């Protein structure tokens, strides 16, 4: 194998590695906040915000019916998506 062929192999090898690693990293980058959220925003099938759910809200005594109302709206939705707030 000549030098030109090896250079071609290295070039295409690097390009294919970038094509595999790049989208994988992008997927992980979009998910970087979703693994350990403090609060999540719940959205319905149209992207409209149904409500926000946060862990800190258990310490607050006000608005205790907010959680029940949020649960009600989640039950009425066919599709639900979750994003870290």
């Amino acid at each position, binding site marked *: 194998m000549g030098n030109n062929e090896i250079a071609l*192999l290295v070039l*295409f*090898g690097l*390009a*294919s*590695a*970038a*094509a*595999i690693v*790049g*989208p*994988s990293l*992008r*997927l992980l980058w979009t*998910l970087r906040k*979703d*693994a*350990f*959220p*403090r*609060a*999540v925003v*719940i*959205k319905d*099938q*149209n*992207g409209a915000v149904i409500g926000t*759910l*946060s*862990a*800190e*809200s*258990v*310490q607050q*005594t006000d608005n*205790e019916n907010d*959680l*029940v109302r*949020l*649960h*009600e709206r*989640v*039950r*009425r*939705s*066919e*599709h*639900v*998506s*979750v994003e*870290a707030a």
Partner: protein
Amino acid sequence: MSQSRPRSPQVQPQQAPLRGNLSKVTGAGSGTGLVVLAEALPINPVTRLALQLLAPWLAIGVALVGPYFSTFVVLQVKYFGLMHLLKRAKYLEASIPASAPNKAVAQAKVAEMETLIGDVITAMAHTWSGITVSGPGLPQGALRSGPSEVGGPNQGGGITPHS
């Protein structure tokens, strides 16, 4: 008719997005990578030829499976995140002393949050099954008003009003 419905039938539901284009890039990259690997490895010529002939099929296979795989990863990570949120809420509830006046409210909130997160996970899995079983072209209200269920659990749907 269309005024009474909140959404028009033409609008597709925003499901978990299929990451199609980057999966094609990844498929092309793995196909090229297999060719390069077969060329670089010291193997006998028949195996090398077989690997290189396999490369387009690997490329198109990765491009086909990629969106489902990435959607699976997304849902898995979000499931993990919701579990983390619930664990943190339980930790915050446990840090409230038992004599505090807001202890009972916090306990009720944690119990409500647990069932709420369960319902959210069910509805997210419903989105996943909508992709795999019915395809993304499912018309609006098909799950709600169809004669038979298309598939997946119906807890996420609004078939029976919650009392």
